[in-house]
């Protein structure tokens, strides 16, 4: 069918079915906004990952009384370990400088600490930063080693927090997706009833099955796209008002940028279009005899 007549069919259907369509759009918007929020949270995790992986290292604190032989021995072992790609020595003064730099936002913490209070350290860069556990275990307790710290472990609570919100957002999106399907299913049923004369005539004059289904799928797909646009709008609003407006000032980590927002918005739009069209096709099997 040409676009003109198809649009005319869609328009009559929309006018007949306005309230139903509106509720479908609202549900789809919520569903997709949740999906988008989940995607942005994941983008945030990745942003932090990227930032931290360059910074966080496994740190081997050295005892103050370590001998030169012990240190050479330790460094040899570290150099020959395939899990470790780089070993860097930091003297007490360097450790202290870094400490002051890291906590420059909290002068109270820095106040009572001097260069002598902090141990000299070997900072390790790992081949796989996520496999830090093994490294920690194998070097803890060696001669001259005061302790082995995995800085990434310090961030576990943050990761858990972000993961929980991501899962929560996706779960809500899934629930809303079910609700959307139920509503689209109902919308198609009502629409099929409202269009039964039209479909009967279309069938009679030899319209193809695709043509007979097209107005229904279009109806649902348009609702999906409108819902997707609303959800994308919400994501942009969240970026401007919440992320840029609130969190940047409070956060010690970099936050996801606009590219993550555009990617999520595009994903949300595509899902809105395709999923609603697919749901409509599924519902049509039930409600439209072709």
């Amino acid at each position, binding site marked *: 069918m040409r676009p003109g007549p198809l649009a005319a069919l869609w328009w009559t259907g929309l006018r007949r079915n306005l309230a139903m369509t509106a509720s479908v759009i609202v549900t789809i918007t919520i569903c997709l906004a949740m999906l988008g929020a989940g995607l942005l949270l994941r983008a945030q995790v990745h942003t932090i990952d990227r930032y931290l992986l360059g910074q966080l290292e496994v740190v081997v604190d050295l005892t103050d009384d370590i001998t030169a032989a012990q240190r050479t021995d330790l460094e040899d072992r570290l150099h020959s370990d395939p899990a470790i790609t780089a070993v860097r020595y930091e003297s007490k003064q360097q450790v202290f400088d870094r400490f002051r730099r890291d906590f420059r936002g909290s002068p109270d913490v820095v106040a009572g600490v001097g260069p002598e209070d902090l141990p000299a350290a070997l900072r390790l860069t790992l081949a796989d930063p996520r496999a830090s556990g093994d490294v920690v275990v194998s070097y803890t307790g060696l001669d001259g080693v005061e302790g082995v710290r995995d800085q990434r472990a310090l961030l576990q609570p943050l990761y858990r927090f972000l993961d929980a919100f991501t899962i929560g957002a996706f779960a809500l999106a899934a629930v809303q997706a079910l609700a959307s399907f139920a509503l689209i299913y109902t919308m198609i049923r009502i629409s099929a009833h409202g269009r039964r004369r039209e479909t009967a005539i279309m069938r009679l*004059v030899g319209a*193809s099955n695709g043509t007979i289904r097209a107005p229904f799928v279009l109806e649902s797909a348009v609702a999906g796209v409108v819902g997707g646009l609303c959800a994308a709008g919400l994501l942009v609003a969240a970026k401007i008002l919440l992320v840029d407006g609130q969190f940047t000032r409070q956060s010690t980590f970099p936050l996801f940028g606009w590219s993550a927002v555009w990617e999520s918005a595009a994903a949300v739009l595509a899902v809105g279009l395709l999923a609603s069209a697919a749901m409509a096709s599924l519902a049509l099997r039930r409600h439209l005899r072709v």
Partner: protein
Amino acid sequence: MIVLDAVSKWYPSGIRPALSDVSVEIAAGEFVFLVGPSGSGKSTLLRLLLREERASAGQVVVAGRDVARIPDRRVPRLRRIVGCVFQDYRLLPNRTVAANVAFALDVIGRPRHVVRSIVPETLELVGLGEKAQSYPDELSGGEQQRVAIARAFVGRPRVLLADEPTGNLDPATSLEIMDLLDAVHQAGTTVVMATHNAALVDAMRRRVLELSDGVLVRDEAGGGYDTAPVPPLATALPTAPATSPPTSPPSSAPVPASAPSSARIPVQPGPGVPGTPGVPGAPPSPWAPAPRGPVG
């Protein structure tokens, strides 16, 4: 054009077959009446030709296609070459006359310039050029049926099925519709018309197929509604206006239209005569050109 070979149809819920062992052949360009009491299977037969239903046994061939073997996605093609009209017109109330007719072309994807030229032309042919912008509820029953015929004919089908097209119309209007269907026939379309309208059948003197309880009990070329010869047109059609008498002179012996069914003669196998030549008074030339548009 249409061949039924030992066709039977049982509906799932039916106790007896709606059609049983019907064999008939209708040539291209024929005009055939399908008569018989209510429930005798006329609509069922038409539905089989449209693949609205499938035969339970036997073979239905339309325009060279074994209807039962057409895959589902090709059924629309069959319906493009088989137009149909019904007693209840089946127009879309929210569309104008022109839009109702255009709808039939739009939904099969005909280009806009074609729709723009064929629709007004077809409305002229059915005598509704003036009413193109009216809505169905502003039209009389006869005019609505003209729109329905225009819609069925606008795609220039090779076969036109009409299921009691005059069922809701008064005798004079019925005759006008009959004229229109006859003009469609003159244009080369094969027409099958199921009807209870004895006067029309008697007046037209075309091939008559009669069903009774799903059995084809009569296949008579130039027959009347009932087996026996019919009275002259003047008595059969009190309100008959412009239509001229049938071309084949009926026997003069008047017999009541409701002759007992025992008088019916058995089925005459084989094809009947092709459509009789044009009835005088049918619209002439515009219908005459060969069917246009895709015919298969």
